């Protein structure tokens, strides 16, 4: 691309792309949900700001920009901040649930601050930081070795499993009324298992790549299904201002795609490492 420096590293770009997708999913989802919550607590803008900045830096990297010197340090602090904001959000969401009458009940988990959602921002931050480090040619992120790709594979596996667990909870809340609601509960865990095994053993099994690709596709398909879900509410899309909020969250499923793409990046690293 003219004006941009040479691509630093294909894997780093892939991972940055994944991070950018996860951050976009957070921005849109938290945007809608926190708007619904009337930004009751001022801290509710933080994930929006953090994810927006993350999208900027990740996208630059994904497009092949070299991150070095001052911009690199700035970008790294954005990712660190996002991990921190995500962690704080996690705490807030758990607190929000526990303070409801009845405490930790299914009802409160279904209808109050979604427990696991802020973790997506932590995922975006971690993936962004990893991509940045790889882009700079670093072989470690802090104490974590990156070159073999195994740590990233393990992290992506964990993130996929967590996201799938979240889908399981919310699809249970929707009583799995549409059989397709089982797909994100079945496919990503297969990918997570395969990727997790690769992380542990250092060798990539045959189904890993197809399972990650399928997960990436279903993330986008999920957004389309959620758009259909929105249409099934009273007034359908004509009543979008209300139904975007009460219907299934359209921006949520693409975080599967983002994590799966980062997982594919990890596989690239692993193959390269294996070749020496």
């Amino acid at each position, binding site marked *: 691309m003219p004006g941009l420096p040479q691509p630093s590293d294909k894997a780093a770009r892939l991972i940055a792309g994944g991070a950018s997708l996860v951050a976009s999913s957070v921005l849109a989802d938290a945007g809608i949900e926190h708007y619904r919550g009337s930004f009751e607590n001022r801290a509710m803008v933080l994930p929006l700001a953090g994810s927006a900045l993350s999208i900027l830096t990740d996208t630059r990297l994904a497009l092949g920009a070299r991150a070095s010197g001052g911009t690199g340090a700035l970008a790294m602090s954005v990712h660190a901040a996002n991990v921190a904001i995500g962690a704080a959000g996690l705490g807030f969401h758990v607190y929000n649930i526990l303070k409801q009458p009845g405490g930790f009940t299914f*009802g409160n988990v*279904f209808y109050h601050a979604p427990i696991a959602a802020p973790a997506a921002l932590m995922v975006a931050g971690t993936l962004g930081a990893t991509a940045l480090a790889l882009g700079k040619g670093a072989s470690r992120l802090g104490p974590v070795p990156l070159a073999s790709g195994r740590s990233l594979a393990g992290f992506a596996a964990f993130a996929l499993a967590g996201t799938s667990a979240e889908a399981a909870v919310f699809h249970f809340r929707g009583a799995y009324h549409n059989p397709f609601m089982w797909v994100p509960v079945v496919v990503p865990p297969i990918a997570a298992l395969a990727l997790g095994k690769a992380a542990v053993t250092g060798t990539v099994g045959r189904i890993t790549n197809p399972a990650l690709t399928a997960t990436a596709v279903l993330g986008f398909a999920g957004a389309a299904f959620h758009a259909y879900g929105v249409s099934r509410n009273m007034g359908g899309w004509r009543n979008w201002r209300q139904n975007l909020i009460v219907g299934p969250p359209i921006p949520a499923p693409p975080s599967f795609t983002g994590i799966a793409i980062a997982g594919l990046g990890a596989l690239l690293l692993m193959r390269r490492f294996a070749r020496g």
Partner: protein
Amino acid sequence: MSAEAQAPRALNGQAPDVFTPGGWVPMREYGEEEVDFLIVGTGAGGGTLACKLAEAGFSVVAMDAGAYWRPLEDFASDEHEQGKLYWNDDRIVDGDNPLKLGANNSGKAVGGSTVHYMMVSLRFRPEWFKSRSKLGYGVDWPLDWREMWTYYREVEEALSISGPVTYPWGPKRPRYPYRAHPLNGPARYLVEGAEKLGIQWTETPIATLSAPRGKAHPCVYRGFCMAGCSTNAKQSALNTWLPRALSAGAEIRDLAMAGRIESREGRVTGVHYRREGEWRFQKAKNVVVAGYAVETPRLLLNSASPECPDGLANSSGLVGKNLMVHLNQSVFGRTQDDARFYKAPPSLAVSEHWNYEDAGKDYHGGWCYMPPGPLAASWARLVAGKGLWGQDLLDEMHRYNNAVGLKMVGEVLPYERNQVTLTDQADEYGLPVPRITFSYGENEQAMIRHALGFMDQALDVVGITDRWQNPDETAHLLGTARMGSDPATSVVDADCRSWDIPNLWICDGSVFPTSGGVNPSLTIQAIACRTGDRIAELARRGEL
């Protein structure tokens, strides 16, 4: 508008499609030819049975005095307009505690009272089916709770009931098909109060959707449930059983008022009914009466003949007797924050504690409690009834957002003196107006005292101030054609078949021998499902 002035919609081989504005679905028509089953009333009992019988392959005509509405286009967010859903025909009430009839307890529409019911869908406590032998009061039902447990399940699935993941009381039950709804403001107060008092609570199993189902939308939590539900989230007979009945070949006749059942030589032969301004006769091999606990005995009594001078199916003398309601007294008060109790279906949380706990009671029977959510005009009527008027009433209405309350559903014992009889006065169809006589007994007074005291405490512990009691409200109508095991002390058997006339059946709230401390519609539908299965079984054995 009087029923006489309206035009029927289910005609010419089609019936309104309740899921599409202006839409139609095909409907089989039987003309005046003799059908296997003619059902009078299409509510919780009749609508459900129409579906079961049509799906079992019988020819079925189900008629209703009410109109055939399409919720999406016919239901306005207007309490006054929606009065069109209530049975407001003339009725005379007396006794020590004359009942208020109409909006609060009887519907007139295809779909019956379920079109404007509050959707609370609770199962009976198992012991209530044997309350005489197990608990020492009332009478035993001829039904076994374990069998009822499977029919409850059938209804819960047919209505996609939204309910808690696990239910805190009674024997194990399968998970509700849909998840419970979020708690609204007043439900949160109920929960906090129950936790403070150390008793159990749960999200109410309720017949409104928490996720889409077919063409029906999920609930939008606006709270117009009692005025009919314009989204089809409410799972009524109108949008569950009746569409199934139609596609299985049943005919539904709206705005068709049954006036008299014809009988000869110990069998019924058909029904005289009024539609489009004229009296007609529908022949049937079997007649099912499902008009709810006032209209059912009224029709049976009005069908007296020289052979049956006291009315049909009345050799026991019990048709019209043992009328029961539910105690529906409430306590209201004021919150500091906005509770908006009119938002969302009312009653999203419930405590059945006093249905399952017998210790410490000085009365028989059980009761549960949940929060009510009166719409504005109903609330204004209620607070005006306290003697507020003028500026005081306006001030109270300004505090509408801060009102919350708790309401009991309490068991009333069967007394023969509480009854439905006929008067000499004639209504718009020329039929005798019914007289409804009702008085509480000692047992009811004791239960009301306990419940009001307890609910007052449950509001007090969560900081509700300015509490006041509404000691005078009832809900639901039951028991005027009870089922039993002995023809001398009951009107129908366990299959809802009348003891006296083998091809006359009664399938609605009238057949309850006791009332239990929960809202009745789930049990009425479960009984109708069982009756449908039993009729099919009897037909297979050639015993119809």
